[in-house]
């Protein structure tokens, strides 16, 4: 993966920056140029809350090559306290203990340890609150 591609996403992956529609309040993560709810084109930059709950999850055992060393690993969709949903790995826990409805905190982690260009990719992961 070319560094420029990772660099472009840094505000979302490192800082959880989203766009909030100044007309209807819809929150776009990642930011968008036009609001899918009301069609307005003006957004203010906000930071997503760092807590939420797991809506669904899976434990991936057959993994893409850059993740094979980590398999089995869990991927989930969490709904944050402001209603925004996003996908990330669920880290720092035994995968058997993951449950729908479980509360999680978003933490900054290394996501991919190597790509075809040897670049380390960082981003967010969900960590269960009870740890």
């Amino acid at each position: 993966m070319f560094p420029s591609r990772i660099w472009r996403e840094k505000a979302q992956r490192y800082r959880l920056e989203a766009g909030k529609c100044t007309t209807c309040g819809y929150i776009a993560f990642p930011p968008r140029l036009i609001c899918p709810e009301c069609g307005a084109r003006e957004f203010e930059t906000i930071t997503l809350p760092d807590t939420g709950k797991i809506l669904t999850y899976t434990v991936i055992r057959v993994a893409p090559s850059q993740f094979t060393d980590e398999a089995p690993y869990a991927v989930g969709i969490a709904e944050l306290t402001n209603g925004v949903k996003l996908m990330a790995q669920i880290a720092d826990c035994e995968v058997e203990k993951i449950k729908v409805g479980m509360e999680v905190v978003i933490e900054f982690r290394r996501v991919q340890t190597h790509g075809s260009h040897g670049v380390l990719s960082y981003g967010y992961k969900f960590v269960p609150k009870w740890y």
Partner: protein
Amino acid sequence: MRDVAVVGIGMNKWGEIWTKSFRDLFVEAALMAIDDAGVDTLDSMTIGCMTGGLFVGQEHLASMMADYLGIKNLPASRVESACASGGLAFRTAYIEVASGMSDIVLAGGVEKMTDVSGDGATYALATAADQEYEVFHGATFPGLYALMAVAHMEKYGTTRDMLSSVAVKNHHNGSMNPNAQYPFKISIEEVNNSVMVASPLRILDCSPITDGAAAVILTTVDIARKLGKPIIKIIGSGHATDTIALHSRKDLTTLDATRMAAKRAFDMAGKTIKDIDFAEVHDCFTIAEIIVSESLGVFAPGKGGVAAQKGETGLEGSFPINTSGGLKSKGHPVGATGIGQAVEVVKQLRGEAENGRQLKNNPKTALMQNMGGSGGSTLVHILEVA
């Protein structure tokens, strides 16, 4: 708009076809369809293919396939909508004939997936998901459908055995399809004990990696009558998209593009789901068939799993689904799948389905649903014996 009919079908044996090239796979199916229709030339051709580039390093199929089909200067195009590319080719050809722009159009689909490693195929298929916000985090296609499965199980109590019953039924049907990749029966226990891919989905919940092609010939009903072929009329065509990322959807247990594409096809045909005798749907994973059956309105939300377990979707059931064996048993050469569905629907409507899988009571009206990615695009068509 002019009335349009399917007058020719062609499909080769699907599977790991090491002996045939990408181009020969396609041309073989195309020639079968041309011969079946009894036409001597085409006005145009449209080909569904998800990613010849990633699977065999070959794009520009319009030129290559027209060239090897031997029709000089044929107007040809390739369309892409991930695993719904075939359905999109069908709709594109339909619009072209209905509009009066062309009289005889071939709609085809092709994918050659086994010339890359398993990891290469995983990578190629994952390009149908959101690279930066799903694939980046390690999501795979089985993983995305597993997320839907867990949400469906939590909300409605769908069980492991319900998922397995879809795979068992489709393999039962596929065992009677000479073109199926895996034409053998499996048991609930075999599915339940197969290797875990992305929990709760096991390998026998997943459709396979497949080489294959299929083609159909579309023309006007007037020309179809002159050709003396059974008239299988296209009475409804619906197309819809949804968010590319699964997590952006309001409800993880329904497929909104399927619901909308079906509504558009039904409105156009002046029909409802109650008028449909059987369907071919996109069972890329067992949970997909269950959710699709609900989103089409065959069963109420949350009731698709129970219905599958009770045999409602079997050959003798109240609403047969995937008489061909579906993607699960017949195979899933992604760009060809939507056209493969059309081949089965036409066979059933002509009364020509092989080896005892022909539906009884002369089915008249059929639906086919083909979707891309985790449901980010969907095509629904309704065909009827005229």
